[in-house]
């Protein structure tokens, strides 16, 4: 079961620009590789990542087979309001891996 990891400055000053660092362990099987018998290994990747604050989208990514295993996605937001940051990764097999963090803006 993949376990996501998220890091950012959880207590921030209003207007501060925060770097959000995220990672998740996932093989990101590209769908391009063949097994020993020459059969194509079916694609199984995390195809989408989304970050929301209080339910409002801040950032999302749509990934393809060329994203390396254990994908890292780092981006920036401006600290404007306190609330719940939610991070979700969507697997080809329908699984959703989620993690949330509180952001406090002073």
């Amino acid at each position, binding site marked *: 079961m993949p*376990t996501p990891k998220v890091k950012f400055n959880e207590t921030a000053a209003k207007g501060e620009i925060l770097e959000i660092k995220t990672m998740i362990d996932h093989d990101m099987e590209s769908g391009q590789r063949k097994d020993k018998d020459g059969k194509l290994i079916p694609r199984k990747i995390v195809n989408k990542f989304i970050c929301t604050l209080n339910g409002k989208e801040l950032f999302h990514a749509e990934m393809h087979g060329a994203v390396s295993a254990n994908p890292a996605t780092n981006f920036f937001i401006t600290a404007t309001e306190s609330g719940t940051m939610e991070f979700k990764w969507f697997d080809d097999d329908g699984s959703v891996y989620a993690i949330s963090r509180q952001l406090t803006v002073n």
Partner: protein
Amino acid sequence: MKTSLIALAALFVALAGSAAQADPPFDPKDPKMAPYISGDKRSGYTFAEPETRAMQDDEFLNPASLWVEKGEALWTKPDGKANRSCSSCHGKAEDNMKGVGSVYPKYDIHAGTVINLEQRINMCREKHMAATPWKYESEPLLAMTTFVKMQSRGMPVQVQIDGPAVSYFENGRRFYYERRGMNDLACKHCHEDNWGNHVRTELLSQGMTNGFPTYRLKWQKLGSLHRRLAGCNEEIRAEPYPLGSREYVDLELYLAWRAQGLQVETPSVRK
């Protein structure tokens, strides 16, 4: 004899002056490099591209940290018929595992032989937790080995090679200098005689083991030293030994002695 000499000469090519590939920057006087050097010993870090070094340096860029967290969770998770966790006996890893990973492989009185850290962890599981040992290279064993070893980060590798360890050490040394495989190469041909030179596009390092388990860009995964050794053996067209085998544990001891004085870097990031 003659053909193997020609083959060797063709294999090791110093690409000096070739515009195709510049080696990663390395200045032994750069203070930032100091933690990765001991005398004339150089960690694999000093042979890595700056982007790879950056990935190792930052916990939140280093993908191995995903396994470290799994190891940390397993540390306090009771398992086996004894319903004990690692922490039941050892308390906080941060306090009590410091300096443990840096002295393995080591002669163990109960085992009656030299064992590595992976085997020590599995011994604990069997003897004290009444739990099944983890498979070599399995996620939990890699995670736990990495979590324990990284408690020694920054401490010098320091293994015992005398007393009961002598014969194991000598076996490891013999392995290092013994030619093997269709390419008829020993470890020393690449990592003692030719480090800093290239095999085709590959820049050869000194083969230091202080950063294992390591996250390899190629594997896109954390992996053990033994997996790397098996890969080395396959590359020179030799039959690899099983992971956790006597041969590889002895070699691991000898390699740890070669890396003696370099700091534990676990979990490192390598190409």
